């Protein structure tokens, strides 16, 4: 998991500032950094580092934003390495085509993802998702598939207006000389800064990786063994 404090945002590149102001910023920053680093002392180093935002302004024409949770577009909120990243994978003894087909039918997902209540395929690569939130609250969002290569990869993102900002991809590959299939999930979601983010965090528990791992284990059990093992009446 990683979080990045800021990133270059293409949407804001066009923000207009007088060219002269940008050149002044860049020149001042360069001077400060050159001076600071040339001192070869801790205060000098600090001065140089402190001039970084000014340099950023000089190049991009805008101050770096350290806390931009303003957009619910996944391309903004989760661009680059932003957001919380979860990576988990599992191997199973089923043909890759079968595993892909099962996953591509998104309405199958609640069968092995225990926090999901339902997924409705809206057609045209769009789907509606409902999950169990904390205190019996329901969390809903719409998503679209943005990348789809049969038997290889499935990528999706939540749509603007959703309660959740998330994106991810599942990669399907054959391993062990083609005898087994490996499913690798890379899930990204906005860290808990806003209400929705907090909901997601609660949804995934304190350790989102362990929840995804359990879901993948259920997928494997369902496809290999035909059922999810249980010792009691309830799946926990």
């Amino acid at each position, binding site marked *: 998991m990683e979080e990045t404090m800021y990133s270059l945002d293409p949407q804001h590149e066009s923000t207009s500032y007088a060219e002269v102001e940008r050149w002044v910023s860049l020149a001042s920053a360069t001077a400060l950094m050159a001076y600071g680093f040339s001192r070869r002392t801790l205060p000098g180093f600090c001065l140089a580092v402190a001039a970084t935002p000014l340099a950023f302004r000089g190049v991009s024409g805008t101050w770096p934003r350290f806390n931009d949770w303003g957009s619910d577009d996944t391309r903004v909120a989760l661009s680059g390495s932003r957001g919380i990243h979860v990576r988990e994978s599992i*191997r*199973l*003894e089923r043909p890759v085509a079968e595993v892909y087909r099962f996953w591509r039918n998104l309405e199958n997902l609640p069968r092995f993802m225990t926090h999901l209540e339902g997924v409705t395929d809206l057609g045209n690569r769009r789907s509606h998702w409902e999950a169990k939130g904390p205190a019996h609250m329901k969390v809903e969002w719409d998503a679209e598939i943005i990348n789809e290569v049969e038997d290889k990869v499935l990528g999706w993102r939540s749509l603007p207006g959703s309660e959740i900002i998330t994106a991810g991809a599942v990669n399907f590959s054959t391993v062990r000389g083609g005898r*087994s299939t490996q499913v690798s999930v890379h899930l990204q979601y906005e860290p808990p800064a806003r209400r929705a983010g907090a909901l997601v965090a609660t949804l995934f528990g304190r350790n989102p990786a*362990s929840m995804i*791992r*359990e879901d993948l*284990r259920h997928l*494997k*059990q369902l496809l*290999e*063994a*035909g*059922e*999810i*093992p*249980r*010792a*009691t*009446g309830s799946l926990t």
Partner: protein
Amino acid sequence: MKAVRFYGTEDVRVENVPDPEILNPRDAIVKVTTTAICGSDLHIYGGYIPTMEKGDVLGHEFMGEVVEVGRDNHRLQVGDRVVVPFTIACGRCYFCKEQLWSLCDNSNPNAWMAEKLYGYSASGLFGYSHMYGGYPGGQAEFVRVPFADVGPLKVPATLSDEQVLFLSDIFPTGYMAAENCDIKPGDTVAVWGCGPVGQFAIQSARLLGAERVIAIDRFPERLALAASKGKAEVLDYEDIDVTDALRELTGGQGPDACIDAVGLESHGTTLDAWYDRAKTSMFLATDRPHALRQAIGACRKGGTISIPGVYGGWLDKFPLGAAFAKGLTLKMGQTHMHKYMPALLERIERGEIDPSFIITHRVTLDDAPEMYRTFREKEDACIKVVMKPGERTLAQ
């Protein structure tokens, strides 16, 4: 139904619990006709097995009659008489396909618990803690058997319950222990522990062609059984120095293979055994590996250490240096039951072995609390207890 339940260290009770139900498509419900207390149940009884909870139904050696089958179970029919392996396996994952049935990927609902302790989880087990799945066990009138289309072995009416019951665990466990020794003609195998698994390991070593078997224990009745039924030379470790005796018996070379059929509650008379007792009693160590240490020390160079005895946690003063210096091979793990059961049933049918020789006590389920104590204290020359749950029909 009536069932034997765990309540804490040295506390088991016979109580009424709800009848089991089919929960998954491949399940079956078995009406238990005969069940047994296993030496490894005594590890639970002694409080050595983590993630046991109050009220858990014990027992993993059982057989009986199929009374109900799930909709996807096309191999069993109501009325079939079956022996059920103590390890639960799906039959379709990588490990099952590789014949490593006790390492099944898909049968432990609580795999995450075992992963925390061991890195990866082995298969689910009946009545053997929540870390191994939390499945109710077979010391009961009825049991739900998951993946019952691959586990239970149908047995012919010509053989009695007592002849086939031990296919559920201890006979295959002793057999795999001997097979792990990679026995060649002329080999000598030493077996630590002459309890039920040790007895079957001794007999299996003979079946697999060992020239000599040396059995080590301290209870006269167990050594006598090893000598009479297993044709083993016997050593009482309270009378003699086992390492010296083994050296002498093998012309200074040591046994070709050593089997530790004792496990984590080993007794001993040497200094390290007292050290283990002290440390485990102060919770500074979890297991007492005295027999294993001795086996590693006694084994010949390039030999094999086979470990059917159960270990659960961290071992202290483990002589890895000796194992390394002598180039030993260590083999261990829960038994890959499904791999061995059919062939061993054939051996029983051919009369090569009658596993019922091990039974010393025949009781009802109600006697379980008393018999756990008797078996643990090895009172009354107790070696193996079988229990008959009695007659009752499943409530619909």
